[in-house]
Structure formats: C-alpha cells, structure tokens
C-alpha cells in the first residue's frame, strides 16, 4: 500500500526523458555518432561517393581493394565503396520508411485495441499474434510473392512483418496506462474519450514504441538485406547492401570483398542501432515497459 506501483515509478522516470542522455555514455556517443554520420553519408552520397555507383568497367571487374577503388570492384567493375555508400541510402530509407509505416499502423491498431478492448481487441490481437509467430522472412517472402519484387513491396513486407510488434507494444502500453490513476482522474474531470486518448494515453505510450521502432530499424535493415540477397529487394543496378551480396556464393572466392564489405556495413550499422537503442532505453528508463510485449 505504501509502495508506489512499478508502473507509476517508471512513468515518473520516463518524464525525465531526453534523447541527449542516450548520447551521454561512451557507447551511446560512439554508436549514436556513427549513426548520425551514416545518415549524413546516405543523404550526401552523390557528393561523397568517389564513383558513379552504376558505372561499369568490365575490363576492371573483380579488382581487389586498392587504389583508386578502395574497397575493390564488383563483377561489372563498379566501385564497391561507392555502392556501399549508396547502399546506405537504400537500406536506411527502406527500413526507416517501412518501420515508420509499421509504427503508424501498429500504434493505431494497438491503441484502438487497447482502448476499446472487448471483441475488437481479441480479434486484432489474434490476427496480429499470428503474423508475429511466423518468421518475418516468410511473411516478407509471401508478401513479395503477392505484390511482386521491388523496393515498394520490400518496404511493405517489412512493415507488415513488424506490425505485430508495434501493435502489441502499443496495446500493452495503453492497457497499462488505462489503469493509471491519472486517467481515471481525468475522466472524472469530465474529459472526453478523445482527450484521454490523444492528450494522455498516446503521448505516454509513444516513447517505448519509438525506441522499439528505432531498434526495429536495425532488424529492418537485416530483413531488407535478406530480401535483397534473395533478389527481391532493390532491383539492379540500384545498390542495396543485401542485393550486393546476392551475386552467389562463388563471389566469396572470386572477390570476397564484394560480399564482405556490404555485410560489414549491415552488421556494424545494426550493432550501432542496437547499442544506441539500448542506451536510449537506459536513458529513458523504460526497460520495464518493454517487457511482456
């Protein structure tokens, strides 16, 4: 009775939120800094990339890393470094767009389910749980099979694959928040449901969803890469980290740099996303709120 509830304590702590705090730790700074640089690189790719990503030079195919091609060339003699740089564009934008769509849809669904409850909630959650228990790559593959290959479908496939996560998380937040006293108190002030939902529930539910979204961008990059590896994502010659690796296992032997560097790019980026996400969770003190969803 005298012990404040766990939920209210973490809510309290959450109010201290500031993204700046995530940068405060050493790891947070390195990971966050890397991501900032990466985003800049993606945006300014045309100015940064030393070569045209599509320029072929068949006479200089599969050249090993060196000068002027720092990371070597691929089977068409295209500069791997430039392609990795442009690939950041594809990977980041596809993944971020997908996750944004997924988050928007998931939050709407989750909030509606959590707020209205009842049969609607059960129906939504059953469907959502179903997509959740299926491997995301399968969902993506089925989706690509339905609407055809390309970046648009990859984007939607990723969005659908992660929809469940956001829906569940948002619903969990809303359900939990609905039990908080301040909601009842606000109702008792005579507030309309829309006020409750928009002014209290959503603003409080959004932070963990955003953090999970940030982490999901990492997963999205991997999924995009995997679809690209299957040849279903970015269509040539558009570079994407996954698609760059899809030229077959033999490339490992012929010119391993073509496979290793994009892979390193994916791995490092995803690791940075995760590290920074962890720091965010720590800074916002929302670890407890991410449980069970």
């Amino acid at each position: 009775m005298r012990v404040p509830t766990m939920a209210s304590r973490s809510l309290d702590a959450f109010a201290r939120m500031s993204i700046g705090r995530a940068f405060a730790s050493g790891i947070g700074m390195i990971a966050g800094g890397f991501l900032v640089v990466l985003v800049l690189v993606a945006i300014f790719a045309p100015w940064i990339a030393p070569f045209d990503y599509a320029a072929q030079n068949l006479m200089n195919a599969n050249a090993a890393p060196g000068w002027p091609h720092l990371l070597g060339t691929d089977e068409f003699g295209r500069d791997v470094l430039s392609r990795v740089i442009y690939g950041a564009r594809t990977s980041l934008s596809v993944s971020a767009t997908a996750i944004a769509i997924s988050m928007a849809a998931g939050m709407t669904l989750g909030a509606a389910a959590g707020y209205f409850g009842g049969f609607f909630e059960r129906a939504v959650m059953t469907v959502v749980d179903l997509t959740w228990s299926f491997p995301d790559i399968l969902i993506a593959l089925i989706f690509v099979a339905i609407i055809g290959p390309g970046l648009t479908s990859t984007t939607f496939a990723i969005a659908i694959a992660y929809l469940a996560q956001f829906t569940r998380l948002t619903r969990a937040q809303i359900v939990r928040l609905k039990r908080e006293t301040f909601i009842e108190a606000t109702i008792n002030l005579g507030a309309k449901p829309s006020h409750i939902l928009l002014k209290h529930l959503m603003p409080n539910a959004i932070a963990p969803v955003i953090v999970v979204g940030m982490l999901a961008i990492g997963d999205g990059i991997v999924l995009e890469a995997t679809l690209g590896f299957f040849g279903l994502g970015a269509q040539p010659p558009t570079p994407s980290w996954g698609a760059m690796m899809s030229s077959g296992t033999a490339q490992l032997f012929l010119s391993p740099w073509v496979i290793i560097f994009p892979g390193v790019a994916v791995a490092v980026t995803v690791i940075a996303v995760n590290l920074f996400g962890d720091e965010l969770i720590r800074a916002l003190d929302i670890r407890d709120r991410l449980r069970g969803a």
Partner: protein
Amino acid sequence: MILRYTFQRLLMLIPVSFSISVVIFMIVYLLPGDPIDNLLRVGSSEEDRAELVARYGLDRNLIVQYFVWIGNMFQGEFGQAIVLRRPVADLVAQNLPYSLTLGGLAFLFSSTVGMALGTISAIVRHPVLDRLMRGFILLGSTVPGFWLALLLILFFSVNLGWFPVSGAGGWKSLVLPVLTIGFGGVALVARVTRVALLDAQREDFVMLLHAKGLASSTILFRHLMPHALLPVVTILALRIGWILGGAVTVEFVFGRPGLGSLLIRALGQRDYPVVQACLLMLALAVMLGTLIGDVAQASMDPRIREKKS
C-alpha cells in the same frame, strides 16, 4: 491437472486453427498468376483450360472450395501438387525430416548453449567476461544469417575444407547450417536467460531465501533457474515455428531441402496445394510450439495453471 490444462489448451486451439486455415486458404487467392497457366500446354484452347480448372476444383464457389479443402486436410489428404505433379503429402514427407533435423539440432544447440552462456553471464560478475558475453549476444542477434552463412562457408568449407559447401548428405553438412541458425538462437536464449536471471535475483523472495541461510548455488539452481526458465521456455516455444520456417535463408544458402525451400519453390511456381500445405505445416508447428510453451509454463508455474483453468 496438467493433463486437463493441456486438453483445454488444445480445445482452445480449434478456433485459432480455423482462422489460420481460412487465412492460409485465402493467401493463395491473393497470389497473382495462375498455376493453370503453368500447367496448360502452349497453344491449348479454352476448353482445355476449363477442364483443368474443373479437375482441380478451382471452378467452385470459394466457400465450397474451402470446406472441401479443409475436409481433405483433416484426412491427411493434401491433394496433388499442380506443378510438381505428385501427392503433396509425399513432398511434405520428403522435406519435413530435413527441416526437423536441422531445426531440432539448431534448437537443441541454441537452447543448451544459450542457457549456459546466459547463466554464466548473469552470475559471474567479471567485467571482461561480461563484456565479451554482451558483445557476443549483440553480434549474434544482429548479424544477418545469410551473411554469417557465407562467412562460415568461406572459412570452414572453402579455406579449411572441413565441411561441405552445400547439400544435405551426412552429419557434416549439418554443422554449418546448425551453427548459422544456432548463433542467433544462442544469442537470443542467452540474452533472455541473462535478463530473466537478473530479474529473478531482484525478486523479494530471493532475499528471504538468503535469509534462510541457503547457499547461493542452491538458490540459483533450485529457485532462480525455474523462474528464469519461464521466459526462456516462452521464447523457445515461439522459436519452433521460427526455426522451421525461418531456416529458409539458411536452406537457400546451403542448398538444403526443407519446408522453407519447398514453400519458396512452390510460391515461385504458384503451386497452390503445396503452398497451402507448407503454410499449414508451419502454422501447425507454430501452434504446437505455443502449446508446448504454454503447457511447459503451466507445469512450471502453478499460478498459470490455475488462472487459465
């Protein structure tokens, strides 16, 4: 008690399975393209087409088609593959063992090694070890599976020649795929175990256990582990579906047969009955996984046993 619980959970699966089966049945109608086109001889007439459509029952009302289909499924009658022209049951029977072997081993590997690592990292408070472990967990849960597979092939098959590059012959061909899937799995299980153990350590009752004078090791194995196991079991149970279906990348890279490869192939060829059967098998695995997880949890946690029954 636990039997009754299991039975109840089984009954509860009925509506879920029904909705899943409807979804699976419908997915196939969302797929563009037409297997009949693949089947039709070049230059054949409309009548030929109509005959084929009738032969596969595609001309009937959707609802009738569904019930015919689901009825057949119940009798283990998966129908005839349209493109592969053989009983779907045969195809599934041919591929399932590969998925089960790979999945089973990967599952075993990731759960045992993962739990061991997770436990060690939760109880050994050595900063260097802790860092290493966290690094490993991070790597394992972020590195793309197919890339890891490629690197493993490059190193172990191409450079060292220890394991075959691809295929499904003999135990050797299992090592790299199991490692690939297992790496992610180990990391996941280790992370969950670690977090669960650390959480359990913070529970009030743990202090009282210490106050009883129990040794730390006793507390760990008799009291903390069961608590840590609860989330681990949940995640592992969910993993069953993931491993069976999600292994498709690994199957692809290593050129292994399996449900995932079969599904991809059937999707490509628009072989409806095969797609349906594969999805159904995977859904079954997923549901079975959840069921096993639920039952395992209930057998470990009396509170769940009671709440749900």
